[in-house]
């Protein structure tokens, strides 16, 4: 087994994505308009929302991996599910940390039961349960099945959670930049750019993590 970045494609991918991320930050600092009353805090939006997008995308991948694991009975999909669950949780944690930091200047207080943040919190808690079950679930073959099932159940629940949280406190508006389509293009285009770059970063992280988990299971098997 070779290190992931010995491979030329992976290495150039890493360099390319690192460059794109740096360009992204430069773009946000230089080319985006300064929104009145929010100033620099509004620019948090350009990486907070893509982080949330990547988190939800990752959890979607966990669900797909779970379904494919049950259908094809191939352990590869269990690896994919685990890697996606980990990376998804990392990004969701970032959302839950940067959310209050963003909210404090905008809303005045760190936490509001805003629908998408609350959905993120609930999903995060579900995945804490996922990892606890991975650890304490018992026999490894059984745990793989349970993990796939929890991944499927969790994402199936997401739309239901979101709708119920949205109507729970209707007086709480979503964070200011909800209506994407109505945003002026000076905001929309850098945002979409950031979104795409984060997605590419996610793909790289996912492939890398799958690789490392695979090495881990092979080393364990050898020992």
């Amino acid at each position: 087994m070779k290190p992931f970045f010995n491979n030329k494609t992976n290495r150039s991918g890493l360099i390319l994505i690192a460059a794109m991320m740096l360009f992204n930050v430069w773009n946000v600092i230089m080319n985006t308009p300064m929104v009145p009353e929010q100033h620099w805090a509004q620019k948090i939006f350009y990486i907070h929302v893509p982080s949330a997008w990547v988190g939800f995308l990752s959890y979607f991948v966990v669900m797909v991996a779970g379904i494919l694991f049950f259908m094809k009975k191939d352990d590869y999909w269990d690896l994919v599910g685990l890697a996606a669950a980990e990376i998804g949780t990392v990004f969701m944690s970032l959302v839950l940390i940067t959310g209050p930091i963003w909210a404090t200047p905008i809303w005045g207080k760190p936490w509001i039961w805003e629908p998408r943040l609350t959905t993120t919190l609930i999903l995060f808690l579900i995945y804490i349960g996922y990892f606890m079950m991975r650890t304490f679930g018992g026999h490894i073959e059984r745990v793989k099945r349970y993990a796939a099932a929890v991944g499927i159940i969790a994402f199936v629940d997401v739309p239901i959670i979101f709708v119920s949280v949205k109507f729970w406190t209707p007086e709480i508006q979503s964070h200011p930049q909800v209506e994407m389509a109505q945003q002026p293009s000076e905001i929309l285009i850098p945002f979409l750019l950031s979104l795409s770059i984060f997605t590419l970063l996610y793909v790289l992280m996912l492939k890398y993590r799958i690789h490392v988990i695979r090495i881990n299971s092979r080393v364990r098997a050898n020992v």
Partner: protein
Amino acid sequence: MFFTLLKKELFVEFRSREVTLSMLVFGLSIILTFALSSNVSPTIIANYAPGMFWLMVLFVAVIGVHRTFSYEKEFDAFSMLISAPIDRGFIFLTKWISGFIFLTIMEGLILIPFFKFLMIDFPSQPWIAIGTTLLINCAIMAIASLVSGIAMRARLSEVLLPILLFPLVSPVLIAATKISGSIMVGDPYSFWKIWLLIILTVIVIFGLVGYTLFDFITEE
């Protein structure tokens, strides 16, 4: 086949009444704790009452589901059950239905103490209240049966079950509180229609998902 399974569940319970009794006693002690620990006037309690009721139901459901599944764990009856040539989705359905029945029985018994201890008025439209409560029980039990199928054979099952269950069931909790709250004050149907739709969606989706996934979950 399916009805044999269901009859088995209900007869086992009918003999020992273990599950409903433990659920009932636990429910009563929760109500007592609510009454003792609340420091507020009756009007404020009336506002919190729907939430407290469903919170209690949730805790009691965890106990009940834990009991019904640990029956099987005791003599490793579960392995024998899944080696039988039946559709394993039926196991999910029987657990769901029997859990629903136990929960409903428990709620029926606990209703009067709940209203009297916390000094709340009965709702003005009792039949609608009962109907929606039954549906909500159904929804809670659908998710609970599915999750316990996963959590029960794990090591820390008593801890794992609530940890997995509560976030997953949170939309049901929100909807249940909204529905009961609206019915208590006599709001018209249009106010709580959306919440009823959410409950029905949960029942349909988790029923289907549970029925489908149970086959895969219980493979050995």
